[in-house]
């Protein structure tokens, strides 16, 4: 019934257009109609397809003069009709981009997992390290849990700007987090790009990678300890690419200092600043690398950032007030045979970060006998990780990662020393192994095992089964 209606409409429309179209087009439409009639009895489904094509041909005849002229050319009427029916009209330039009319390109990320921890994640810490985000929150719940559901929208704003926003819907408390929301220039030229809004900082390598694109289920210990997983800020960024045959990128950011390792600085002016530089090139036909250095400077507001139980013994909950500087070195190397990544490829990532804090630690009186006091406090610590991921089959990848936080030096005042607040001699470390199955570019199912020795006296064996699905716009990933 419906099909009949479509057919009638299509033919009616064809007739209406017949008068306007050239003789050649008439022949063309006639030809298709004849074909339809001839096939009607035998191939009901094919008729439907041809009708669609007929409609396309009509559109082409009506709107595309060029198509009509082409059809009028040397080709015979039948051949032309077939060609016009089988091909789309040459589209207007606007339709050939990847964005849908004026709607932003939208992509949706769905993540979820099953986690098995041999130690209770709610009581886990990283001994000796100022875990800025609550460690138990960072590990997430045991058992089944939903990860972040992310929606990203992006489009050119106009001829000068491009805008993008990523909203992450948390699995609990129904919170919506604006992970990134920024506009950037497309037209400054000379290699400059200026960005304003909230965005993942360009420091390091993995920091600016969204969780769904990580090669492991969880971030590295350094990212967790020093960067709050993904360090982002509200501010501005200027990046310059040098006019050289090798890649040289220089970048700087100014922000409010809203997030750890700082805390909302609550002042006019600049609360955080970063600088970064990257250099990169190809090595042979199959390899390429990027090497970078970066630094971040930020500070806390008067109430400080909470340092939870710094030595895992005293039960102190001591706010730290002062400056934080972070220095990082990052390296990425990727390789594929002949540079053809589809069947096999290898990726090596290594990052090292060092942080220095210089300020005041506020001690609350506590059960361990530390009296209330505020005294100078200096801390110097570092950490690194190295990970390799090998895709050995178009659908399968395996990866290994080693993580370590390196105990540095700390200088506390007499009150803390007398109260027995000491830094234990302990080096937190962890190793991880994962295998993931990628049936297409849009889905990933991962099995990961961690042995986590980041808390003194504990071995936490962790197993994750995770899924990551990308819906909508085909994402483009950075190197």
């Amino acid at each position: 019934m419906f099909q009949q209606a479509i057919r009638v409409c299509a033919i009616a429309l064809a007739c209406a257009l017949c008068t306007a179209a050239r003789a050649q087009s008439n022949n063309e439409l006639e030809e298709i109609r004849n074909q339809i009639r001839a096939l009607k009895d035998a191939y009901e489904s094919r008729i439907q397809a041809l009708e669609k094509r007929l409609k396309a041909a009509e559109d082409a005849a009506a709107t595309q003069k060029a198509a009509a002229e082409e059809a009028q050319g040397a080709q015979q009427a039948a051949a032309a009709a077939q060609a016009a029916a089988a091909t789309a009209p040459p589209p207007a330039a606007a339709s050939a981009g990847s964005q849908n009319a004026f709607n932003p390109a939208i992509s949706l990320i769905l993540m979820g997992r099953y986690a098995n921890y041999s130690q209770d994640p709610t009581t886990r810490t990283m001994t000796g390290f100022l875990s800025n985000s609550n460690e138990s929150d960072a590990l997430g719940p045991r058992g089944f849990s939903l990860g972040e559901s992310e929606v990203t929208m992006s489009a050119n704003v106009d001829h000068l700007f491009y805008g993008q926003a990523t909203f992450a819907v948390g699995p609990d408390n129904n919170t919506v987090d604006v992970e990134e929301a920024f506009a950037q220039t497309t037209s400054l030229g000379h290699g400059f790009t200026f960005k304003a809004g909230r965005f993942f900082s360009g420091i390091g390598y993995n920091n600016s990678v969204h969780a769904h694109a990580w090669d492991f289920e969880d971030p590295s210990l350094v990212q967790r300890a020093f960067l709050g997983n993904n360090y982002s800020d509200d501010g501005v960024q200027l990046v310059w690419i040098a006019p050289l045959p090798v890649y040289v990128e220089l970048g700087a950011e100014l922000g409010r200092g809203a997030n750890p390792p700082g805390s909302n600085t609550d002042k006019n002016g600049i609360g955080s600043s970063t600088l970064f530089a990257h250099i990169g090139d190809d090595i042979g036909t199959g390899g390429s690398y990027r090497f970078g250095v970066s630094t971040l400077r930020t500070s806390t507001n008067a109430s400080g950032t909470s340092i939870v139980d710094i030595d895992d013994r005293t039960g102190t909950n001591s706010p730290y007030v002062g400056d934080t500087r972070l220095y990082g070195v990052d390296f990425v190397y990727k390789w594929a045979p002949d540079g053809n990544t589809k069947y096999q490829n290898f990726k090596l990532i290594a990052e090292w970060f060092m942080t220095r804090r210089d300020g005041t630690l506020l001690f609350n009186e506590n059960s361990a006998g530390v009296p209330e006091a505020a005294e100078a406090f200096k801390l110097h610590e570092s950490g690194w990780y190295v990970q390799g991921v090998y895709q050995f089959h178009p659908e399968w990848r395996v990866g290994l990662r080693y993580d370590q936080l390196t105990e540095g030096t700390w200088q506390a005042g007499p009150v803390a020393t007398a109260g027995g607040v000491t830094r234990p001699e302990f080096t937190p470390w962890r190793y991880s192994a994962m295998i993931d199955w990628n049936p297409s570019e849009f889905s990933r199912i991962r099995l990961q095992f961690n042995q986590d020795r980041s808390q003194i006296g504990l071995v936490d064996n962790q197993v994750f089964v995770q899924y990551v699905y990308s819906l909508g716009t085909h994402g483009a990933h950075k190197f």
Partner: protein
Amino acid sequence: MKLAFSLSMALAAALITAQAHAAINVFACEPEWAALTKEIGGDKVSVYQATTALQDPHRIEARPSLIARMRSADLLVCSGADLEVGWLPVLLHTSGNEKVQGGQPGSFMASEFVSRLEVPSAVDRAQGDIHPFGNPHIHLDARNILRVAQALGERLTKVDSSNSAYYQQRTKEFDARWSKAISEWEARAAPLKGMKLVPYHKDQAYLIHWLGLVEEMNIEPKPGIPPSAGHLTELLVKLKEEPADAITRNAYQDPKAVEWLSDRTKIPGVTLPYTVGGTPEAKDLFSLFDDTIARLLKAKKPA
């Protein structure tokens, strides 16, 4: 130390760019467009070819070297129609080069100038990684090259107007040579009409359409999805019932599946160049088509 290195690199590069200032910089996404730009642009263009015939153009890393080259490009020549959707947007957004952004004269997408095949009426990723704007592998219909060459010639005169007479002249010459070549290829390929192909991916569609071949099926169960053992067995059964004339792959596609099927069905497995550099014989656009047709004719030869 690093600073000194960077500075010396900068200096060296400045010298190189000063010397090469005469030519405009073209960033060509694929080898076929690099070759075409050289045909039309001659010595007035300096072409950087971003990918090789051994690389799957869908799956390219947005490498630092590509960003660096994009930074200095005056003209971008790509297939478009979302073939490069997985990597080109990153290059454009990070290059800080306003000249090559979409809609600018410096952004040339070849697929905008031809009629595209296989434009889906509805898109759903359950059908694989399909292209909503139609099949983007447009260059294997030699007639499309002619249309793109015309448009590219016009674009070059726009981007580099001081050499417009030169580009017009070369476009005309290319047009004449290519038109002649098309008639030769069509004559040579006449025996191929109706030849049944099983290509690895839907990237021979334009060749098939142009020369009147038949695409029986693909080795990939769905575009972009590699074949499983089960799917290959299914293909084997189908091909034994209804044999095809050749099973084809491009240089960057897995040879194992083609060999496996070819061994069991005795249908010749053929490696097609697909683009310039895909076989030792395909040295430029002309030899690309010479070689493609020669390889198919060889496979067609009755046993």
